[in-house]
């Protein structure tokens, strides 16, 4: 399992783009990068997953450079409701087991 490192917290304002970078220096060849979002008093919610280059869905984009030692989650035009903790996960163990780190607390201000 890749050990991931991400900033503890980030502040932003409504309408701005938020980019959260996660480092995973020891990621294995077959490992994917997965991001989850967690609102207060709720369980985490899957956002996006990628292996290399760029992945985009209706919620976010994920950029993974060629060396795959880091990845950046991009949230376009955030709103107050995007205030949450965002977790970067690298790879999985057998049984689809995941390892959550401390996450990045994103606060979106008016």
């Amino acid at each position, binding site marked *: 399992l890749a050990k991931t490192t991400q900033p503890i917290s980030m502040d932003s304002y409504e309408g701005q783009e938020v980019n959260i970078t996660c480092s995973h220096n020891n990621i294995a060849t077959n490992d*994917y990068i997965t991001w989850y979002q967690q609102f207060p008093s709720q369980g*985490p919610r*899957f956002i996006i997953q990628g292996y290399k280059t760029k992945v985009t869905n209706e919620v976010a984009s994920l950029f993974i450079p060629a060396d795959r030692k880091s990845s950046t989650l991009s949230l376009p035009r955030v709103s107050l409701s995007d205030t949450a903790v965002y977790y970067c*996960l690298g790879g999985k163990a*057998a*049984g*689809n087991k*995941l*390892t959550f*780190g401390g996450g990045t607390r994103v606060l979106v201000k008016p």
Partner: protein
Amino acid sequence: NAGVTQTPKFRVLKTGQSMTLLCAQDMNHEYMYWYRQDPGMGLRLIHYSVGEGTTAKGEVPDGYNVSRLKKQNFLLGLESAAPSQTSVYFCASSKPDRSLGSNQPQHFGDGTRLSIL
């Protein structure tokens, strides 16, 4: 569209008491998991199951037992509750493992807040 349902949502126990947390999923998922989350921390895996009748230990299994008698249900038991087990407990489920390193997204319940005095 219930997804993953956890009961109860809140519970206060005294040290030494026992209780069972229930998790039910209606997505026909093979895999189920129990995590705990302490304040300001990420989630830690307690036990998990890759199918009916099978369970395995996760990162922090001590003091907990689990059972998966039915595919849709995953029970977490505390035999003798301790204050260190005060936490928020999350259940999750997913489709079976993929062969490569990609993750099947896990679907989480809204948690059970457990306080042990």
